[in-house]
């Protein structure tokens, strides 16, 4: 099955050429059962789709598949797809085509019907995209308004904390500090939600400067304040204050997601350790926690919708977004499992960035 949800409304069987699978059923014509059989049996179907994807000369023609059915390339909002698993009426496809038309009359369409289907599908597609864009705009507008309210709470609480204890506002009245830090946490969460709503943000260039230790330190302080019973330790190599090129809009998503995830999946009473290490010309951040043994945990947790634990909360989007932001910053992110025993294991997520320069 294709991962593209819009393929569900295709009139003809369709394959996403960027992620080739067996054809999805069309609304007007279902994918013939032979497609599934053949796709699973050998590589002939896969090779056929790859040839269609890679050869521009085949893009405006009906091409016969290795099993006699008809395929035709199409683009839908910049994605490569192919309509397939149908038969063209008239003298097309030689004797094999004739035989299939007789045995599978429900798959037969005319050339003009094909054009009509393709146009209708493209129109549908662009309407759905417009709808999604409008929805995202409204969503962004609503989020903007909520951010404004949260800003008022945050800045007011901070202002009062500053007036009570100017030199150490974090040490002011604990209830006030808690309000202040909770609204800081909300800002961090809004940044994550905003990226979910507007994935274009990861296309912004990393043109600002970011002191990576301070970024994590700020986030740690927020989480410590709102989770006073949890232990979060931040360590760094001595005199190591790296600065990286960053996108101010997205960079804070990385510590937010990594710490949030560690808190969610760590064993009660265990410590979350964060190390900022000098691996010149890179800086490496390791976020580790002890978690219940899970032999199936692997790097697929960085994929969209994959949860670190099946019984855990969350949408399965956090690490996917964090990885996208890491890649936006030309960094890398990986998962390392260690200290495994029958009960638990140590789970470390390592993020690596190129150092721009060091702070004096």
């Amino acid at each position: 099955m294709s991962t593209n949800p819009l393929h569900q409304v295709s009139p003809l069987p369709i394959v996403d050429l960027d992620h080739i699978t067996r054809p999805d059923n069309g609304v007007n014509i279902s994918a013939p059962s032979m497609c599934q059989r053949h796709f699973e049996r050998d590589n002939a179907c896969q090779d056929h789709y790859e040839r269609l994807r890679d050869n521009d000369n085949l893009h405006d023609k009906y091409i016969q598949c290795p099993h006699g059915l008809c395929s035709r390339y199409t683009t839908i909002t910049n994605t490569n797809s192919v309509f397939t698993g149908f038969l063209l009426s008239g003298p097309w496809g030689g004797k094999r085509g004739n035989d299939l038309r007789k045995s599978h009359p429900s798959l037969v369409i005319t050339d003009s019907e094909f054009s009509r289907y393709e146009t209708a599908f493209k129109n549908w597609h662009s309407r759905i995209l417009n709808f999604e864009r409008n929805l995202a705009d409204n969503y962004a507008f609503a989020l903007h308004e909520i951010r404004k309210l949260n800003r008022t709470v945050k800045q007011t609480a901070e202002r009062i904390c500053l007036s009570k204890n100017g030199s150490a506002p974090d040490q002011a009245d604990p209830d006030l500090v808690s309000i202040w830090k909770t609204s800081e946490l909300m800002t961090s969460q809004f940044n994550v939600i905003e990226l979910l709503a507007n994935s274009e943000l990861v296309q912004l260039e990393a043109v600002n400067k970011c002191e990576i230790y301070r970024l994590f330190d700020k986030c740690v302080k927020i989480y410590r304040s709102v989770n006073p019973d949890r232990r979060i330790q931040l360590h760094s190599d001595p005199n190591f204050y790296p600065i990286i090129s960053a996108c101010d809009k997205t960079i804070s998503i990385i510590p937010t997601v990594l710490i949030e995830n560690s808190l969610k999946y760590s064993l009660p009473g265990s410590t979350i350790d964060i190390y900022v290490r000098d691996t010149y010309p890179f800086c490496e951040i390791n976020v580790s926690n002890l978690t219940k043994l899970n032999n199936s945990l692997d790097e697929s947790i960085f994929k969209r919708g994959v949860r670190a634990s099946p019984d855990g909360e969350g949408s399965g989007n956090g690490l996917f977004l964090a990885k996208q932001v890491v890649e936006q910053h030309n960094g890398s992110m990986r998962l390392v499992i260690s200290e495994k025993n029958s009960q638990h294991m140590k789970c470390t997520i390592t993020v690596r960035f190129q150092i721009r320069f060091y702070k004096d």
Partner: protein
Amino acid sequence: MIEWVFGKKKSFSDLDIPTSIQEVRRRSRILIIDDEEPALAADLRAASLSVDHVHDITKNNITIVEQEIYDLILLDYGNVGRSFGEDEGLSLLRHIKRVNPAVIIIAYTSKALKIKHSDFYRLTDGSLSKDAGIQESLEKIEGHLKKAHSIHDIWNDLLGRCNITPGSKEDLKLQDRVLRSYSKGTKKMKIIRELQEFSESEDGKKAIYALIAKSIQLITSSMGVN
């Protein structure tokens, strides 16, 4: 001083430009361009910074951003700069950067802009979310103000526009001329006119003027003349 009189070439490394944050605060002027005056303005004033706020910039008040009045501008994106183009704050940003490159501009918005407006982040000298905390905002602004008072940054920008290599003989000669004439109107104008020849466009000439004016402003204040 004796060396100056006897002909040793003057350069900006002879200047005593203060770097203490108190001095930078005292000398700095900030403009906030935002359709609503943010509460942050009061926090900045409370931190002894000189802050003005305008709801918008139009052709009627454009001179306040074209002249070297402000060291730093906090620029909102939405509902400002519409008289400069449909890209609102981005259109205004483009104009200011063209004619007054000496001023530091910070993108001041909490809106998630579309990728087609990402120049708003790219062309500014930094960004500050309206969500940011008070201390975080102050720290970021002060960091940029220090840069605004760095004659080397401004001078290098000027050299780039005039095709002069930093550290070259031409650069050192120019530094010497500027330092000897910063308080002498006629000589100063002669240098400005010469350098403006490097640009063919009116906006380019304005930019060169702004950069020299800013350099002279910093020289003057470092000499304790202001």
